[in-house]
């Protein structure tokens, strides 16, 4: 079987799985899985850029995804003028002061020598911290006191939510630049721990800085790029067209919005995939892989290893940020409490490894396939447990136990799949070529 036929067959398999879901569980669930699958595929592309192309071990994906989510709030929600009046400028001034402190400390590190350097850096950092807190804290308190039940934050720019997708990418890229500057020189497993920590910190910031995006009070009811179901159901033209297709208006409207999302997501996925393919097959992509395979040799050839690493770290994180913004748009709400590393970092890694690291199509396949499994393992597991325990009496402790445990099948199955792929097909379903 030629590789092309094989790859097509694998994507065909995903299509069959989705269509099967549609026939058995309804098209609504199938489209839900497809939409999140498309987003997962984009996240997997981002991780594949970093790991597959450049061998960078980033397990802080969750943080960049969450930053993308933050972008939707900052771009699309209405600004809160009272909050800006109460303390917006103070907060901005505080943030600028904080940034200046860091810049000054870095400059002191670069310019000064010996003991003076250490003392100057410490004085700048400690002094800057207290100055920052003195300016920032009253502003924060004032802003958060403004109508805390519904806002309590500075709000956004009231721009179209689609604009938040590229902005999410930019936010993630900015964070990646800062992280890359400090942590990229580290060895692979140190970088891993560092990125794991950064992701936790980003989530902690989202949870606690209420002035930014309301923290754990969540932002709900974000704008949508597609029409609301209820509006569609009240539109006589739409109802008529739905009736001509033999659908009732409620089902038709939910399908219509989901297909709308799916089209938008597919466009973004195709653009990013096209760019990634172009990059992979360009001299730049070959250089990246050369650096990945032998850093010393690449450096000896005059390649700027650190610079290239920083570049691709930023690019990959930006892709994750875009996906994060898309996901929050799809959810219609930003809920910082739901970001969990197993789901948003390690699952993406499973997707990349299973799909085939170093191959963009592999990452897309892995994203769609693993997401389908992630959703379906639970009902499948429940079915399996029902069959296995069918011989047992109803209400027996073991039976209850087995059925209850189906809910925990997901993580276990993902781990087993990852281990099996690593063991028997370490290059993934669609290997690097």
């Amino acid at each position, binding site marked *: 079987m030629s590789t092309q036929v094989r790859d097509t067959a694998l994507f065909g398999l995903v299509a069959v799985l989705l269509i099967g879901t549609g026939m058995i569980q309804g098209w609504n669930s199938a489209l839900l899985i497809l939409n999140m699958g498309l987003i997962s595929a984009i996240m997997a592309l981002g991780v594949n850029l970093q790991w597959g192309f450049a061998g960078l071990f980033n397990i802080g994906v969750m943080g960049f995804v969450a930053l993308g989510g933050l972008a939707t709030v900052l771009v699309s929600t209405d600004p809160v003028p009272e909050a800006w009046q109460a303390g917006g400028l103070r907060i901005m001034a505080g943030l600028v002061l904080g940034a200046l402190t860091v810049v000054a400390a870095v400059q002191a590190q670069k310019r000064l020598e010996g003991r003076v350097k250490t003392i100057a850096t410490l004085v700048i950092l400690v002094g800057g911290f207290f100055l920052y807190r003195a300016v920032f804290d009253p502003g924060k308190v004032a802003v958060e006191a403004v109508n805390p039940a519904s806002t309590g934050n500075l709000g956004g720019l009231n721009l179209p939510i689609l604009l938040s997708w590229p902005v999410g990418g930019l936010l993630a890229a900015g964070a990646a630049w800062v992280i890359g500057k400090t*942590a990229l020189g580290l060895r692979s497993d140190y970088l891993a721990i560092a990125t794991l920590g950064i992701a936790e910190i980003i989530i902690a910031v989202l949870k*606690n800085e209420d002035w930014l995006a309301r923290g754990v009070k969540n932002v709900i009811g974000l704008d949508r790029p597609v029409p609301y179901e209820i509006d569609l159901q009240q539109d006589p033209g739409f109802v008529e067209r739905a009736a001509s297709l033999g659908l009732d208006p409620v089902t038709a409207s939910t399908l219509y919005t989901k297909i709308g999302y799916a089209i938008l997501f597919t466009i973004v996925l195709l653009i990013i995939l096209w760019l990634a393919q172009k990059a992979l097959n360009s001299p730049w992509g070959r250089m990246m892989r050369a650096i990945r395979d032998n850093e010393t040799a690449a450096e000896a050839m005059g390649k700027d290893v650190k610079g290239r690493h920083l570049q691709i770290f930023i690019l990959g994180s930006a892709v994750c940020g875009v996906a994060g913004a898309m996901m929050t748009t799809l959810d219609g709400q930003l809920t910082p409490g739901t970001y969990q590393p197993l789901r948003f970092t390690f699952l993406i890694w499973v997707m990349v490894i299973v799909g085939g690291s170093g191959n963009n199509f592999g990452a897309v396949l892995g994203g769609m396939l693993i997401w389908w499994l992630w959703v379906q393992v639970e009902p499948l597991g429940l079915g399996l447990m029902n069959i296995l325990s069918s011989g047992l009496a109803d209400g027996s402790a073991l039976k209850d136990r087995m059925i209850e445990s189906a809910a925990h099948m997901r993580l276990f199955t993902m781990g087993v799949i990852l281990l099996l792929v690593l063991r028997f097909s370490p290059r993934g379903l669609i290997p690097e070529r």
Partner: protein
Amino acid sequence: MDFLNALVAFANFVFVPGLAYGAQLAIGALGVTMIYGILRFSNFAHGDTMAFGTAVTIKMTALLIAMGVSFGPLPTALLALPFGIGATIVLVLLIDWLVYQFYRQQKASPVILVIVSMGVMFVMNGIVRFYIGVDDIRFADGERFIITAREFRDLTGLREGLAIRTTQVITVVVALIAMALLFWFLNKTRTGKSMRAFSDNEDLALLSGINPDWVVKVTWMIVAALATTAGVLYGLDKSFKAFTYFQLLLPIFAAAIVGGLGNPLGAIAGGFVIAFSEVTITYAWKKVLTYLMPESLEPDGLVQLLSTDYKFAVSFAILIIVLLFKPTGLFKGQSV
């Protein structure tokens, strides 16, 4: 100025909790550092190994209590601990045989092993959830306090109380015993010496006839014992929740790296460094400062450098600072 009261407040809110937390992190970090030193990879499944051992211990504790066994004023979980350790040893040896052994024979690069350990992490996390669920479980029984804040105040006549919980003392004592045993084993026994030799220079150790399979097995056994102990101590002191244990990975790794990966002494020092920094930076110092400052200078805020939710940021910041300025850690660790 009231120096004594300030000191007691400091001990009550910073020193004692920090000491217990530091001991827990130190034992956890010892496990990570042992794996790194001998098997040469960062084990991401360590948090979940701790969770598994603790889960077995909790089930065993319940069984013992049901059988009417108790440990007097001490928590019954201490009696159940050996069973937890035993079960964890069986599990990690099984996983090593099924999973890691293959990659060792292939001489796979460390980063592949890290990814493999991610898979093991998922599997173990699943097993723990199957076994005990995702709820918050408290399993400490017996006497809660060695001395309560009220008793201390009555005893000394000070305004501040110092409460010392049984679990805190147990943590420190058990941690000391575990460390002493580990160092005795590494420095005095033949197997321990061969493990250190293996960690220092694998080729030379193989050349001098050290059996690598045995060294690896013993390492896993020790790591399982350390992980279970750390997990049970943490759970006794706070509570057991599978997800929290997964999150402990970050401070534990920070501790191991800050101390110097592969260096057991470093792991202990790192554990306390991380724990005390977390506690001091996220503690609201108002209480202590009110006693120390003249009345006119009394702070009106909480004097809290960072909110407690940012405790990850603290371990992380220390990690980055140490890595940037002293890449092999405070004590000399290995660099691969």
